[in-house]
């Protein structure tokens, strides 16, 4: 029953949206508000009862925070007081002794953050492992300004600076230099974006446009996931674990040398995850499993040239419940879906550095993905070639330029809900870019200017320039400002797709006619790119070795955003007869968003570190343009929460025991009727032996379950539940 109610509100949202159109032909939606608010409440509130309850649990929350703080401070202060007296006298030690000392953390790579004129945030592999994150989206919850929300167990909506959806189309994601953004649906299928968590070297998140370097669709952000190089810092290992949600998980990694100059990593990984919270009474059916495997080889061809070859393949099955429209009574159906998911990729990168500092990189990859269920059935292949060259002209001027060509081929089997015309398409896109870095005053004032020219076979030429200026008013203080333009190219769906989105029952409030209405979203082949001009300012500071601060403010202006316009109703004479109400996907809307993002880190001692983040945004102020915006519909392009807060604390309680805690507050997603929530994670890691680590992780501990987001595609949201997991990691 609840599902049907839920669907009614969906239909209502669509119709309400249409009603905003001046040119509306739909007299029958003249009173959309008459659909009982009682009904809506029933549909919206009941599944989220858990969320409301956290208010009652504010005491619990306070205790949890207190626990983190007490744990952290006590540890910090005891170490601080011990530091002087019990320290080893390093100055008196011999080299041999020094070589025998085990140190707490050995940072592999530096983040030269203070010199980036962008809102960049880096999650290190170490942080991710300590947090107990089991998926990449889990890890991304730590990043300030990102909104990460589960729709169900295997679906996420992830976005920066608004416009969130399960196909959040303004965020570009790359894994080891390979884009994983789907040109077919404009978005990222997060369920298949996975690596061995232990292999992650770092995740760089740039909020705001990154199109000059990264290309189209890097509108609101770029997420760049990099895995470690096999070799020196990696070992052969085995991980096995089990938990209340992840029934079984295991991974095996081999790491070893190949010849004199190369090293190889081979891995396999498998997990089987349970259904999310089913306490609302519906069998959520969102359990899923996936297996993946692959390798990465890194080798030196000569002193100055390197090669990387890597590949992954995966296969899995994910379940979900969908509410889908039906042209026959009762006009909505619940589909229990099992989606078959497969894919793979292979990439080779060759880089050569000359003595004079010239660096050339050539990268080529092939990527394919396929999904099959009754809702959608497609396969896609991507071929990509990139070249990049960077060099210094003088000590003040650096240049980077390059270009690339990509070919996408996809095939969509028309189904009841999605069809494409033509069903199969091959399309190419080429780009060239150049960027200069000029130190106006060396070490003080730096200017970066660049542009990308991108030619898309379907949408023509896009120009995506940007300018950044960076100033160090004093050592360890950085001020920066930037202006940049980025575009989101239309997906195949936007131009050639047809989505059966709702069926309005006959003789109903919204449809007084005696025959049902089939509401269909239609892509229009004239659709252009959505575009953005963003203005950003930022300040970054290292107050001391232990404290860093980072504040960013942004103002974004979007033009030609997706919108909807109702077309002429058509009568379909098939039996049973129905009226087709086409709704054209256009791009006629404008929007503005602005906000602030803050990140701070404080290392109270070598063993204790706090990280704090807060973001606030004012969304969609001053909507303009014609038509109905996607953003005004209940579940398309949600403005997301206006406030987000998180605290991460990690302490080495003893040399071999680490405790890491996280607390997150996410404000309500108002348009979706999703309440705010507070939740927390806790991980205990115990290095029993140098080769053996045991860990216990609890995730989303502060409530039994909470709902985070509603899908725009009829996928039924399930509650993110409290879950526990134990892992054993053995270095072989």
């Amino acid at each position, binding site marked *: 029953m609840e599902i049907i109610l839920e669907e009614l509100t969906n239909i209502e949202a669509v119709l309400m949206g249409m009603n905003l159109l001046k040119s509306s032909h739909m007299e029958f939606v003249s009173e959309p508000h008459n659909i009982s608010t009682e009904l809506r409440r029933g549909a919206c509130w009941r599944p989220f009862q858990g969320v409301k309850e956290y208010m009652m649990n504010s005491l619990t929350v306070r205790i949890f925070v207190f626990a983190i703080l007490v744990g952290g401070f006590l540890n910090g202060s005891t170490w601080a007081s011990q530091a002087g007296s019990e320290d*080893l006298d390093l100055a008196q030690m011999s080299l041999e002794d020094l070589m025998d000392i085990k140190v707490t953390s050995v940072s592999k790579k530096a983040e030269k953050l203070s010199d980036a004129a962008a809102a960049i945030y880096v999650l290190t592999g170490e942080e991710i492992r300590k947090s107990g994150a089991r998926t990449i989206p889990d890890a991304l919850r730590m990043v300030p300004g990102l909104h990460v929300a589960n729709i169900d167990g295997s679906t996420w909506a992830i976005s920066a600076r608004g416009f969130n959806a399960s196909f959040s189309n303004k965020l570009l994601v790359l894994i080891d230099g390979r884009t994983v953004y789907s040109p077919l649906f404009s978005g990222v299928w997060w369920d298949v974006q996975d690596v061995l968590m232990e292999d992650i070297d770092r995740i760089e998140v740039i909020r705001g446009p990154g199109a000059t370097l990264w290309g189209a669709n890097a509108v609101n952000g770029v997420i760049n996931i990099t895995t470690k190089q096999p070799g020196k810092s990696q070992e052969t290992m085995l991980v096995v674990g089990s938990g209340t949600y992840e029934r079984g998980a295991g991974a095996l990694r081999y790491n070893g040398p190949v010849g004199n100059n190369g090293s190889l990593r081979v891995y396999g990984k498998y997990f089987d995850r349970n259904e999310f919270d089913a306490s609302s009474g519906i069998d959520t059916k969102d359990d899923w499993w996936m297996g993946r495997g692959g390798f990465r080889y890194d080798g030196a061809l000569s002193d100055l040239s390197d090669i990387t070859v890597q590949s992954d393949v995966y296969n899995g099955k994910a379940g979900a419940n969908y509410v889908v429209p039906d042209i026959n009574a009762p006009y909505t159906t619940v589909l229990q879906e099992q989606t078959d998911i497969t894919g793979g990729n292979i990439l080779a990168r060759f880089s050569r550095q000359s003595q004079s500092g010239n660096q050339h990189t050539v990268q080529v990859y092939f990527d394919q993905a396929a999904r099959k269920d009754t809702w959608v059935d497609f396969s896609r292949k991507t071929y990509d070639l990139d070249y990049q060259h960077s060099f210094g002209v003088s000590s003040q001027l650096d240049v980077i330029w390059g270009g690339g060509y990509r070919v996408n081929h996809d095939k969509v089997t028309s189904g009841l809900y999605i069809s494409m015309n033509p069903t199969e398409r091959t399309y190419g896109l080429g780009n060239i870019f150049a960027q200069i870095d000029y130190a106006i005053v060396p070490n003080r004032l730096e200017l970066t200017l660049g542009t990308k020219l991108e030619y898309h076979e379907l949408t023509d030429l896009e120009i995506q320039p940007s300018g950044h200026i960076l100033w160090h008013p004093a050592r360890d203080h950085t001020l920066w400002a930037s202006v940049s333009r980025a575009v989101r190219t239309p997906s195949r769906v936007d131009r050639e797709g047809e989505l059966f989105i709702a069926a309005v029952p006959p003789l109903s409030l919204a449809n007084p006619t005696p025959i049902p209405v089939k509401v269909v979203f239609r892509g229009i082949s004239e659709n252009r790119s959505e575009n953005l001009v963003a203005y950003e300012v930022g300040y970054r500071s290292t107050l001391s070795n232990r404290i860093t601060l980072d504040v960013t403010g942004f103002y974004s202006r979007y033009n030609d955003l997706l919108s909807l316009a109702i077309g002429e109703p058509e009568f379909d004479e098939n039996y049973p007869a129905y009226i087709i109400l086409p709704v054209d996907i256009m791009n006629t809307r404008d929007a503005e968003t602005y906000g602030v993002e803050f990140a701070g880190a404080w290392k109270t001692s070598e063993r204790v570190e706090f990280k704090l983040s807060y973001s606030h945004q004012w969304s969609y102020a001053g909507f303009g343009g014609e038509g109905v915006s996607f953003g005004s519909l209940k579940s398309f392009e949600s403005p997301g929460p206006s406030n987000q807060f998180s605290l991460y604390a990690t302490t080495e309680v003893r040399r071999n025991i680490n405790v890491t805690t996280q607390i997150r507050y996410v404000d309500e997603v108002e348009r979706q009727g999703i309440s705010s929530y507070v939740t927390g994670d806790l991980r205990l890691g115990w290095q029993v032996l140098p080769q053996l680590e045991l860990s216990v992780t609890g995730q989303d501990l502060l409530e039994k379950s909470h709902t985070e987001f509603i899908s725009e595609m009829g996928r039924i949201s399930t509650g993110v539940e409290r879950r526990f997991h134990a892992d054993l990691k053995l270095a072989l």
Partner: protein
Amino acid sequence: MRRLIFTFVALLCLSFCTAMQVGAQAKAPSEYAVKAAFLYNFTKFVEWPPDVPDEKDSLLQICVIGENPFGNELENIIEGMKVGGKSVTVSYTRSAEEILSYDVVFIAQSEESTLDRMLKILTNRAILTVSDIDDFAERGGTIGFFAEDDRIRFEINVDAAEETGLQISSKLLRLARIVD
């Protein structure tokens, strides 16, 4: 109720860990404290060519270029130390132009992007270059730190050392991984 129980357990767990900590053993030194000690030790096993004109003959000057990762660990180590009769000093800079007047230059990881240019400036100078930038020695630096099994190791580029004219003692070479 179960929530409260859980929180209580979590709290207990943390306080337990904290309590254990009070009686815990001496802490492992931080990565950069150890690297600072290495840096100081290196100076004992390197001989600078005598013909280098140096007005400040009584000083052995170490310079850290880039974002200082040591905090004050380096000062702590070298405070009051003498190597071969010379007092050891340390200074910090961000400008590549300034580094030529020092005996030892530690290049911080923040300078990775300009490393090649910096090494070019330093070619054929009697300056010991040390860094923990990845593959520093492979890229033409003299001594590079790397990590192995949470311990700090170093590698020496013998050719680069030869070009600088520095004499590196066999003991240091024996402990290092050699890059040629």
